[in-house]
């Protein structure tokens, strides 16, 4: 076989065809399973299109344009110059949905990052260490869970509005309210993930390979982050994916209540708020942002479903 000769001669050698070699790694298997989920592919495609819409779109229409008001053009129905119409102060709805999309998606992603980090840290510590650490962390988690999210969002939004300065990122200016929203959503959504991660850790830490790691002398941190965590990625990925949808909706709620990102910065949510008085007279004001929210949330949900099935190790399909 051309390998280094074993010094011990009695060990049976395995020939090439005795070595089972399925051609697929775990990643490839997962991809295969994902591919069969038509709705998930559809969701992924739509999501990619939406992201492209929001970000490529900004090359064609500048932000200045999105915020440019001309009261002579107010409340115009969709036309060739303004495909999505104009709003109550004459701004182009199409452009605003593009920039609004950027903010909504950005909020979704950053909020989810915060909540994932927080949820994983809390869940891992509680699940792995158990005892009083678990008890304390879980009581905190349950306490925060019991506070209605919307209530918390509203209270914190009112409290911190105007207190955070504007930041500039990637050439765009973000009002402090965006930061506030992101942090609030992140801090009110981590609990679900914490419980899931805790459950995963509780069951995974009983496995023999964890005992083997301890017998080797691996540190607790090593076991948590390099052994157990990689094996619990599935629910984390799924929860994070669906969390993006939740965050976008949460932003929409708050903004709709007027407590979120303030105009002139556009978000899909505050565009809905702006459409409130014109529900029947100018339906294009709520239709387009609403549709975009709907499409985004739906496609994320389909994607999440597909990921959940693909990552499920018990799934029989290949």
């Amino acid at each position: 076989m051309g390998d280094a000769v074993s010094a011990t001669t009695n060990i049976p050698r395995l020939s090439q065809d005795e070595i089972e070699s399925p051609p697929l790694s775990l990643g490839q298997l997962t991809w295969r399973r994902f591919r069969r989920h038509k709705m998930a592919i559809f969701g992924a495609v739509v999501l990619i299109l939406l992201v492209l819409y929001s970000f490529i779109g900004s090359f064609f229409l500048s932000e200045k344009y999105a915020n440019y008001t001309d009261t002579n053009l107010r409340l115009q129905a969709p036309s060739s110059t303004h495909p999505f119409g104009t709003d109550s102060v004459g701004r182009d709805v199409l452009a605003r949905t593009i920039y609004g999309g950027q903010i909504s998606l950005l909020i979704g992603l950053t909020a989810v990052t915060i909540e994932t980090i927080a949820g994983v840290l809390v869940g891992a510590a509680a699940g792995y260490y158990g005892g009083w650490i678990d008890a304390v962390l879980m009581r905190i988690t349950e306490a925060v869970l019991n506070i209605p999210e919307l209530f918390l969002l509203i209270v914190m939004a009112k409290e911190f509005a105007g207190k955070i300065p504007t930041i500039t990122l990637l050439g765009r200016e973000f009002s402090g309210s965006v930061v506030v929203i992101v942090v609030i959503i992140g801090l009110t959504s981590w609990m679900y993930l914490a419980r899931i991660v805790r459950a995963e850790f509780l069951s995974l830490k009983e496995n023999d390979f964890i005992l083997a790691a301890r017998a080797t002398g691996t540190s607790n941190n090593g076991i948590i982050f390099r052994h157990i965590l990689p094996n619990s990625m599935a629910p984390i990925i799924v929860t994070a994916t669906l969390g993006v949808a939740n965050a976008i909706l949460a932003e929409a709620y708050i903004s709709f209540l007027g407590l979120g990102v303030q105009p002139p910065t556009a978000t899909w949510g505050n565009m809905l708020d702006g459409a409130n008085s014109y529900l029947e007279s100018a339906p294009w004001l709520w239709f387009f942002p609403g549709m975009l929210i709907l499409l985004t949330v739906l496609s994320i949900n389909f994607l999440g479903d597909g990921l959940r099935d693909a990552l499920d190790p018990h799934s029989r399909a290949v």
Partner: protein
Amino acid sequence: MNDAQPLIVVEGLKKYFPVTSGVVFQRKAGSVRAVDGISFSIARGETLGLVGESGCGKTTAGRTILNLYTPTAGKIVIDGQDLTNANKVDLKEFRRKTAMIFQDPYASLNPRWTVNAIVSEPIRVHKLFTKEKERIDKVNELLNLVGLSSRLINRFPHEFSGGQRQRIGVARALASDPLFIVCDEPISALDVSIQAQVVNLLEDLQDKFGLTYLFIAHDLSMVRHICDRVAVMYLGVIVELGERNELYENPLHPYTQALLSAVPIPDPKRDRERRRVILSGDVPSPINPPSGCRFHPRCPIGKEHCKMDIPEWFEASPGHWVACNEIKG
């Protein structure tokens, strides 16, 4: 094989697990006395077999000896070093000198790690080779030692059969050049034809590296084949300990006798000829072991006093120890 000082000395080792009850506030309702005072020693290069049926505590004993469970009481001395009150540095050194091979080839390897990562973990944890190239060379060497091709180094556990996974587990156990390996039912989950492969491998490695084994198993035929001395456990205590041929040919304790007579022999004529001792009832729970001699409810020769007298552990003949009220020195 027998050096001056034994490599492993275990004295009065106990491991209890608390049983809690109560929904809001959990209080201790009792203990599962999984290991309830065992003592033995293992010489360098020796293989000691630890046998017993489910619930006897042998697996718990193996894990407690390696400090994977903190002992409730008792002393463990490895290579002259007393483990009670060992500090972190000593403990880490202890981990390097010891290793464990597990029963379930499907659960004992991290499914997300490559063979390379799995086998090299002890090397990385104990910083035995600092350069990546040296580590990979060592991993290849270990894989070859256990009969696996180096080409498999970047594969994942799910791509291997049970026997191959067990070999990966053996390679991992050898990675830190240990002195002592606890083999916890290493072949029970394998097919018969693969069991022989793995057992032969373990023996070859022992010859080559002078390893000392604690071989925990319930397959008494295999234990006789591979072990030098054998200890029989029942409900958390050792009831008999002896050199293998002496124990198998001259079992003193009624439980050992029943156990040996229950083992099927792949030889119909011999099987028909022999006398079977059939025990009645099931193994009682380790939460509330019977009083006196733990075996008395099922013992074919038990007498009244066995319910009260705890049998004394004594040497019936050189090297042959037993704890039974009906057998006195």
